[in-house]
């Protein structure tokens, strides 16, 4: 039996080399594009109906989700400030959700199970929060390192703690998503491998498990997308509202 982690390996399908960088297109990227395309066309289809105030089924589902994201943005960032970041947050949510879900289709790939990808997103968001913080508050932004209501003697202790938790943010953000996606897919791969290798008399058992775990994985895909998005909101909100 091959390693259950084998299916995380990627092989270039279209070789592209640009200035010495390997930018080949592989399965993960194709799967991601498929997810993106689905997201985009779902929204396009939902938004097409003009003039009618009564939404269709698809439209109402997407509207509920957008409403939900808007509520999240308003809660963590603020009503007026949040409008600027709404599109970004919503894109983050649907991008991650689509990537998570498309990976559950047998034979495709979850790009969020690559730590470099989730790490790249987390670091980009981290840098974005720093940029927002510095442009909004200038030098005053450093006060984020000292929580309010801390006695003066504690400041030398609190600053390293706050630095650690600041740095821990993007890492935990990326590791959480990566670990959940990898774990789920590994379990699925193991069960599926068992189902394939066992005889038909016993093979249905792991196969039934595969279906159950798949259902669980769908829930986890939603929850992880939700957590990633919420934390992005929280981090942006923290640097905007500074305590």
């Amino acid at each position: 039996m091959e390693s259950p982690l084998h299916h995380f390996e990627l092989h270039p399908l279209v070789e592209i080399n640009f200035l010495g960088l390997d930018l080949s297109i592989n399965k993960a990227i194709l799967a991601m594009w498929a997810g993106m395309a689905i997201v985009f066309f779902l929204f396009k289809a939902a938004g097409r109906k003009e003039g009618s105030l009564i939404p269709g089924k698809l439209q109402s589902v997407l509207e509920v989700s957008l409403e939900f994201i808007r509520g999240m943005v308003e809660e963590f960032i603020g009503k007026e400030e949040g409008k600027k970041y709404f599109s970004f947050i919503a894109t983050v949510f649907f991008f991650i959700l689509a990537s998570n879900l498309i990976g559950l289709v047998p034979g495709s790939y979850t790009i969020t199970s690559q730590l470099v990808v989730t790490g790249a997103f987390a670091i980009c968001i981290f840098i974005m929060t720093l940029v927002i913080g510095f442009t909004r508050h200038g030098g005053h932004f450093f006060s984020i390192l000292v929580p309010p209501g801390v006695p003066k003697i504690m400041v030398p202790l609190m600053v390293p703690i706050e630095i650690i938790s600041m740095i821990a943010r993007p890492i935990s953000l990326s590791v959480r998503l990566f670990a959940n996606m990898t774990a789920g897919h590994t379990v699925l791969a193991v069960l599926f491998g068992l189902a394939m290798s066992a005889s038909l008399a016993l093979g249905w058992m792991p196969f039934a498990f595969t279906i159950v775990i798949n259902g669980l994985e769908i829930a986890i895909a939603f929850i992880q997308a939700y957590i990633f998005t919420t934390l992005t909101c929280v981090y942006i909100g923290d640097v905007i509202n500074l305590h």
Partner: protein
Amino acid sequence: MSEDNDFRRGMGFAFRVGTELVVSVFVGTTMGYALDWFFGTKPWFMVAGLILGGAAGSLMVYKVAMHLPSGEDEDGER
């Protein structure tokens, strides 16, 4: 997203807090290790980093838990 609001919050809290705690300790320790390597003061910064990382993780958990709307445990206490 049709899940119950409290359930979703609870799940988010659980998933969030676990990794945050571990990662905080890990980051603290790694930073201490790096400082040790830089200054050549072998275990001391790492030990401090471990403790501070634990503190940071606990603080984070505390903050998140304080932010959680407590419906069942204590009435309206935030």
